[in-house]
């Protein structure tokens, strides 16, 4: 009985996640007529304990945005950086969206 309780507690504990919004930034927004094409990109890194040896995943977000707006400019970008904490793991997530202006 006690083993079952321990296992179910462990299962509940591991399935719980805490999300922290580390930072949010917003750039000046474009005119209404320039808001036709909204693009967004996400990049993330799943880390065991704190064994993260570089933050190169952050640079993927602007690259993904630029790929969606070749030859144009991306304005009004909203960037969110959040961490999702599991028991032994942390997920670093960057979400960004903006407007592609050709």
């Amino acid at each position, binding site marked *: 009985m006690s083993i079952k309780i321990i296992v179910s507690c462990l299962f509940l504990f591991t399935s719980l996640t805490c999300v922290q919004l*580390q*930072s949010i*930034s917003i*750039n*000046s927004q474009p005119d209404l007529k320039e808001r036709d094409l909204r693009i967004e990109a996400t990049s993330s890194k799943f880390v065991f304990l*704190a*064994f*993260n*040896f*570089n*933050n190169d995943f*952050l*640079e993927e*977000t*602007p690259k993904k*945005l*630029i790929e969606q*707006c*070749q*030859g*144009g*400019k*991306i*304005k*009004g*970008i909203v*960037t969110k*950086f959040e961490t999702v904490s599991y028991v032994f793991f942390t997920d*670093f997530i*960057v979400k*960004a969206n*903006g407007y592609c202006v050709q």
Partner: protein
Amino acid sequence: MFLYIHKISVVSCLIVVHLLYSNCAIPHRYTIGDLDATNAPKKHFKILVSERGYNFESGITVVQAGLLSANQSANMEAARDLEFVKILITLSTMGPVTGRKTFNSNYANDLSDIIYQHCRSGKIINLQSIRESAVYPVVSGEIARIEGDCLE
């Protein structure tokens, strides 16, 4: 059996040495400026400014471990006194933090001047600012990293 234990201790020593000499990179804040996906000629630049951060509590814990390893009563008392110092430091520096404690918060003040040195034209696009820490066992590098492209 002895060989097995010996192998485990060698592996654990290697892991400890690796952990001591490698740093963990912790991201804190990240922002992206307006992006330019045109084909205009541009030069990428990356700027890092940093300050040494300290984790006094873990430093004291290392000292305590050293004192207790000698197994003398005087050392036991010193280790207990250091525990009090640790509590004092924790209480006097409690609150929301970004990274570890530094003695100077002015290290990022000149960033705009440094950016201008890297981009004399002043036409800067694709700016990203990253606040991160390179964490070692007791000390850390508290880093502000700026990346961007300079239109020539």
